[in-house]
């Protein structure tokens, strides 16, 4: 059983994983207890599993755990410790964005990654092609305009 040390939300965590090919999503959820990132489709369409790896958004359902060793992983649980992430969270609250909320960790991490890539305001939405079945899109769009 391979052992990896992952830096999640600024803290190194060592974890025994049964399979080197296991996607990061399931290591975060089942082995490290970070359940913020969600399983939605498993095929990189819905975006619910999105996390930030070295400032880039990644679909954690398709990222092998072995490929993120030594990189900085930020999940929705870690956004409050990030300047951009905290801004996004505040905008989400100010605009009362979530309904069921299940897709929002992915929306928030992707938004934060877009901000880190230099996108602001209306430039962010084209970077976030996620699905929200509740249809919170008007409020997400509005929240993004202030970022």
């Amino acid at each position: 059983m391979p052992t990896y040390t992952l830096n999640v939300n600024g803290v190194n965590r060592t974890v025994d994983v049964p399979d080197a090919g296991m996607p990061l999503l399931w290591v975060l959820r089942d082995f490290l207890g970070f359940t913020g990132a969600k399983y939605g489709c498993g095929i990189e369409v819905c975006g619910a599993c999105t996390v930030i790896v070295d400032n880039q958004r990644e679909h954690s359902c398709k990222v092998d755990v072995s490929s993120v060793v030594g990189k900085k992983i930020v999940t929705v649980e870690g956004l409050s410790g990030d300047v951009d992430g905290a801004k996004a969270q505040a905008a989400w609250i100010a605009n009362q964005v979530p309904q069921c909320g299940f897709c929002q960790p992915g929306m928030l991490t992707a938004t934060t990654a877009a901000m880190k890539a230099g996108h602001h305001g209306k430039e962010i939405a084209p970077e976030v092609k996620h699905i929200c079945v509740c249809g919170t899109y008007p409020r997400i769009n509005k929240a993004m305009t202030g970022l």
Partner: protein
Amino acid sequence: MDDLATAPQGPTRRDVLKSVGAAFVLPFAISISPRSAEAAAPVQIGAFIRIDETNTVTLSIGSSEMGQGIMTGLAQLVAEQLQINWSQMRAEHAVGGAGAGNPYANPLFHAQITGGSTSMMGWYTPMRTAAATVRDMLIAGAARQTNTTGWRLGTAGTVTNGTLTLTFADVAATAASITGLPAPVLATTTKFVGQRMQRLDIPAKVNGSAIYGMDVQVPGMVFASVVHCPTLGGTVAATPAKPNRAGVLGVVNLDTAVAVIANNTWTAIKAARDLEGTITWLRPSDTTRMDSATLAATAQSLLTSDSATAFVAEAVGTPTMAGAVKTLDQTYRLPFLAHACMEVMNCTASVTADRCEIWAPTQGQEFIIPAAAAACGLTNDKVILHTTYLGGGFGRKIEVDYVVQAVRCSRQLGVPVKLIWSREQDFQNDKFRPSALIRVQAGLDASNNVTSVIYRNVSPSIKLQRGPSSVTNPEDTGAVAGAKGLPYSFTARRIEHVALPTDIPLGYWRSVGESYNTFAVESAMDELAKLANINPLTFRRDRLADPRAKAVLTAVETLSSWKNTPPTGYQRGVAFLKGFGSYIAMVAEVGKTTAGTIKVAKIYVAVDCGVVINPDQVEAQMQGGIAHGLAAAMWHQATFVAGVPQVRNFSNYPYLKLQSMPTVSIKLVASAAAPGGVGETSVPVVAPAVANAWAKLTNTRLRSLPFYPGTTMGGL
């Protein structure tokens, strides 16, 4: 979705109707929490309200929070009666119940289910009454505790007699034992009710701490995923061997599926996929009733058959096209649909010899408890059901299938099990929204009065499928919801439902009968307006007597600048619905994309949902329902080939994206009427509003949904 109450073990629609207006009896088995012996322990006062040592007031609700904001809405009702600060208010799901005496049953249904946009309708008066009773108990408790008189409610969670002020927490334990108070007087202030209070669940939903079913962690649990027979209705012929994959612990034969047990979710899903194609299934011998092409042909024949057994849901006069000056005879077609909750079906269960504990994202506590008890050979009282947040429900999570699977796995294995479906299993084993083939015949007289309407809806019946089936009383009120009892002044009318025989598993999909009937009705109204050469908004309004109905049309007329010429390249279409206890009128402003497909630029909506508890959340439901209804109208259809569902993932069931969402403008029409529903109200009117605008723009009438079937995302 009143027809929800016909699910197994549920009360009938007649029970529901009987219960409306029945006096509410406060479920006061007064209980103090077990820890109340300690001085600082939280005190439970009645079934709904708990007060802790920090003077925080926690509301336990029976309705499920699946995004509609019901936790917050009900908390606003409580806060109003208690006049506390919003920062003191919390809400949580109560432990679920079922059967008689369950205080968390929706008073409309006498069943703990969340559906039909009924939570606020059901709880508006009972919840305020419960909170006002607690308020009076706190006041009486202060008097008893201090042996003084003259106590009244203070501010910020206090009671006062003018000289002494005590917090709720100070007097809660005494208050909890007060009995025999007169019926409370309900506060009618509007500090919280009608205000844009921030949702109580949003902080947890933006920091990742909100616990959905999928996020539940129980010590010692193992993980399961399932593979069902690819053909609907198939069963397991022989239990397969355990897949040879590291981390797999075993398999469980669930009759209609095989569960693979593993030490993590990913391995369970992968191993379940390994098993696909290797399991020997007993497939249904005849799949013609689960084949889209065959079903379409059958529906077509039933549409015009004189011998079809039709349920006549409504008959007024003798409708006939014989004497009409102008007639309409058109057919509208709607597909089966999947629910596609963002959170796939999942459940965690821990079963021991004498206890079954469940953590589930569920809208159907009433159904889960007896189903789980039966699966364990236990009585209902041995089932402890924790409702988590739901990552979408839309009617799918009122079903018990996924819960019973988890319970059976845990019972067989003797350890807690978290069972999660893959997205592919979720799409393929849905309880599908019925298809509908609807013929509308209507006649106008010389003055353009609608003198006759003959309406036949051929669609699979949810009620007949889940029984109790009765050919002598095949009433399926859900199947004609949105067609029966229309407020339009049709002189004579006959509204029929013909059940299309199918074995495709059927279920309640957000807005149920209205989700298909309203498309036919509101498309036909537009076609009639065109025949009459009358502005379609005016045509509708002049055929409505109900002032609330007329008012929403007038409001959307103003909001959308209906009387003004639309921007070049755009046209507007309108649709109206009285449903779910509310009134809604919607205008879609539609143009063409560069590819020549439908581009929905703007949606205007006016809604009268009675007393508004939280305007921001009514608006959220309007926005969300529009996104939901628009994606369905544009792209969604679940098809079947010889019993095999063809939709497997979001890749062939697309949704809007941020940039394809139209601009939405909303007008809440002020009303003092009792609260109506808002969770479903906006969904059914989207497709007809868009089709009506498109007909105006292109002179092409779209009578079949979706507008762009298939896997491409045409339009928007």
